[in-house]
């Protein structure tokens, strides 16, 4: 303790003084000061011990009432966090209901996806530095070479000509410097004016400080960008004053300011306020930090993986990150550390003072009722501008929803979502739309078309052959006469506050829903995952539509998280209800109304696997028949494999 150390020199100075007096003091008196010191010392020690005892244990016995309130309150608070925003993670550890399932290799190996990006084994998390260069799409990712849980993070690397057929390459970066010895973490790429690439990434230093580092391709002539050089002057940014050493990570792609500088933003927090710091640079080596923030929102916690980019208000194409102008809105997106949800908001960017203002502050970035890219399992997402095809592409990390023991047993954990184009919904102007990149259609094999009318309370098998790798595009219509009856019937109540997550799932029947598909189902429907619409009757004949996914019966296993996901989906006048579903073993991606509401989920059936997987169409509405017109494609594998010389012969599509 500092206090005692600072006292020592003083007390030792006293000794010479007392020493000179000692000689003249008789022996009995010489001993007494020591005894007195000892007595006082023990006295204080006893007092200290007593006080400590009283404070810590006095809280338990007499204060039982207060304690119970506190523990009940905190349990409720924890449960509240779980129920409202963390449905996709575990609640308090309780005894498990239902049957335990002894995972075996047959069941586990079925879970590997056929056409989603995942490494051959081990753990993966955030997408990093995606870019297009010299004919190849590059994808980097957080990777643990040593196990199926997070840790020891390296940068994995893969390339593809079409964002679908990936080829594994060697690690791009490993933790070999003091400034990234504890982890080569998330980062983003920027193209300079001369077409060269700079990469900014977070390093966890040997002292566990989060810093930003610069790297660039060792050989710009190598289209595979195999080797990366770290700037000798790293780190280029360290946590600034007032920012925690462990609250400073995930630098964005840079954009040009009107005075020709480059600008980046980095997420952080101050107490419970999520913030986005702003830095300007001309050379990516030295930076000026702005005193103001790009944006901040109270009570949202740490902002991870911030993304900032322009979207066109009128055109259906992507924009380079530096584009600005009257036809443009800007998106701020952040990954909320607290809730594992990626939120975004639409707003206006003011370049002159590097600030951004949301169009609708009540659904600002990170607000729980605000917009999300995806209402299921989807985190740490990142976009990049694909200059090859003039579109903005979104990558998202899809973690597992099973136990870590299963991940360790199967030897891997996590996949990436299928890359999606992302753009402003020019029809509503109030949300983004996402859609799987068109290149995924190259995996489509044979297809079957269906047109079915489904009466209330019916489940219809859809015969498509194998049903674990599917692309489904469907259109639904509610029978007009039934709609009219429902609206005329006053006894059918307005559904006031419907929410997929608290609705109890697809077996709970309403007047006009739920209806949709049961995917990854077995013949007896003992296991199934429903992807569906739920339409509610509002005032004045107004319909409100929700798009949901119910995983609660997806598996008999009880050591898996099985939430109901979903959200409201805007349906404009004259539009039919449409959905698209990509089924790929243990991952399902659902797109409602052209990608206005998207839901990704992870499921782990024990019976509905291999030849036993089936597809069903269902209508659980009470009062309305529905007509479904849909097409189902068998999907081929993407045969993701390590890069070899043969792969250089692949012709590039223009």
């Amino acid at each position, binding site marked *: 303790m500092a206090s005692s150390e600072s006292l020592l020199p003083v007390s030792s100075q006293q000794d010479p003084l007392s020493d000179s007096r000692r000689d003249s003091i008789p022996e009995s008196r010489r001993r007494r000061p020591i005894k007195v010191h000892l007595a006082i010392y023990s006295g204080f020690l006893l007092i200290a011990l007593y006080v400590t005892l009283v*404070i810590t244990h006095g809280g338990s016995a007499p204060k039982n009432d207060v304690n119970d309130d506190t523990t009940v309150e*905190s349990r409720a608070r924890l449960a509240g966090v779980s129920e409202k925003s963390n449905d996709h993670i575990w609640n308090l550890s309780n*005894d*498990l209901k239902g049957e335990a399932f002894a995972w075996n290799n047959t069941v586990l190996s079925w879970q590997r996806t056929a056409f989603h990006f995942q490494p051959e084994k081990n753990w993966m998390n955030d997408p990093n530095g995606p870019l297009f260069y010299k004919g190849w799409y590059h994808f980097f990712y957080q990777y643990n070479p040593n196990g199926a849980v997070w840790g020891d993070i390296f940068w994995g690397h893969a390339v593809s000509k079409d964002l679908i057929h990936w080829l594994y390459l060697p690690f791009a970066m490993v933790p070999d410097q003091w400034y990234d010895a504890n982890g080569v973490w998330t980062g983003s790429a920027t193209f300079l004016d001369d077409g060269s690439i700079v990469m900014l990434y977070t390093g966890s230093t040997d002292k*566990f400080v989060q810093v930003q580092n610069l790297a660039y391709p060792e050989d710009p002539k190598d289209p595979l960008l195999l080797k990366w050089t770290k700037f000798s002057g790293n780190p280029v940014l360290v946590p600034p004053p007032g920012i*925690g050493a*462990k609250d400073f990570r995930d630098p964005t792609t840079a954009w040009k300011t009107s005075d020709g500088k480059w600008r980046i933003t980095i997420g952080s927090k101050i107490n419970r306020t999520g913030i986005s710091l702003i830095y300007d640079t001309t050379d990516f080596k030295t930076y000026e930090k702005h005193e103001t923030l790009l944006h901040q929102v109270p009570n949202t*916690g740490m902002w991870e993986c911030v993304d900032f980019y322009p979207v066109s208000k009128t055109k259906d194409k992507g924009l380079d990150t530096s584009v600005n102008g009257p036809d443009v809105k800007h998106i701020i997106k952040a990954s909320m*550390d607290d809730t594992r949800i990626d939120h975004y908001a639409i707003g206006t960017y003011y370049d002159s003072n590097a600030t951004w203002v949301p169009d609708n502050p009540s659904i600002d970035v990170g607000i729980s009722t605000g917009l999300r890219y995806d209402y299921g399992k989807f985190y740490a997402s990142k976009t990049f501008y694909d200059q090859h095809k003039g579109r903005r592409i979104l990558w998202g990390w899809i973690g597992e929803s099973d136990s870590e023991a299963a991940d360790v047993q199967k030897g891997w954990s996590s996949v990436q979502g299928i890359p999606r184009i992302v753009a402003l919904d020019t029809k509503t102007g109030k949300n983004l739309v996402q859609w799987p990149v068109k290149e995924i259609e190259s995996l489509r094999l044979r297809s079957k078309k269906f047109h079915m009318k489904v009466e209330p309370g019916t489940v219809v098998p859809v015969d498509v052959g194998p049903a674990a790798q599917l692309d489904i595009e469907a259109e639904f219509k509610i029978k007009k006469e039934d709609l009219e009856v429902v609206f005329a019937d006053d006894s059918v109540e307005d559904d006031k506050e419907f929410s997929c997550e608290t609705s109890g799932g697809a077996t709970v029947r309403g007047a006009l829903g739920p209806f949709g598909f049961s995917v990854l189902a077995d013949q007896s429907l003992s296991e199934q995952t429903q992807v569906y619409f739920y339409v509610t009757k509002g005032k004045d004949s107004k319909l409100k539509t929700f798009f949901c996914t119910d995983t609660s019966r997806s598996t008999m296993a009880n050591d898996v998280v099985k939430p109901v996901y979903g959200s409201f989906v805007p349906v404009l006048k004259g539009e039919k209800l449409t959905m698209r579903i990509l089924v790929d073993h243990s991952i399902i991606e659902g797109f409602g109304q052209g990608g206005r509401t998207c839901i990704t989920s992870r499921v782990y059936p024990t019976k509905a696997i291999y030849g036993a997987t089936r597809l069903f169409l269902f209508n659980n509405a009470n009062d309305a028949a529905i007509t479904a017109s849909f097409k189902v494609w068998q999907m081929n594998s993407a045969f993701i494999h390590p890069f070899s010389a043969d792969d250089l012969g692949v012709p590039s599509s223009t």
Partner: protein
Amino acid sequence: MKMVVVMMIMMVMAMVSEANMIEQTCKETPDFNLCVSLLDSDPRGSSADTSGLALILVDKIKGLATKTLKEINTLYKKRPELKQALDECSRRYNTILKADVPEAIEAISKGVPKFGEDGVIDAGVEAAVCEGDFKGKSPLTSLTKSMQKVSNVARAIVRMLL
């Protein structure tokens, strides 16, 4: 003499304020008494920040997992008819030791607590699965229940770091 008195007072204050730190932290967990007893009994508890307290809890998880694995090993001989369930428990508790604990330690130390939360939550899940495997006739109930409780407390503390 005066300096000694001042020193004593400061020591008392430090002890009291750390005692307060443990108490304040434990109030925000689902099991105040368990939390306090785990942190108080550990010599590191007296000077730890929230991260440090979380790491102590992870260490308790590690200790409890090791103890449970030892018990599982003795049960193979005593209760050979339970082999299948014991195998599954062995797998689950080895996951706690080899995956959950190292993940939590690394994540909490490096300032990405959400992966630490994953690890401590999973410790409770694995314990619950092991317990469930005995279909009501578990010889490990008090150990698995302990793990679930410690996991809940640890999780609450890790959440404070988010």
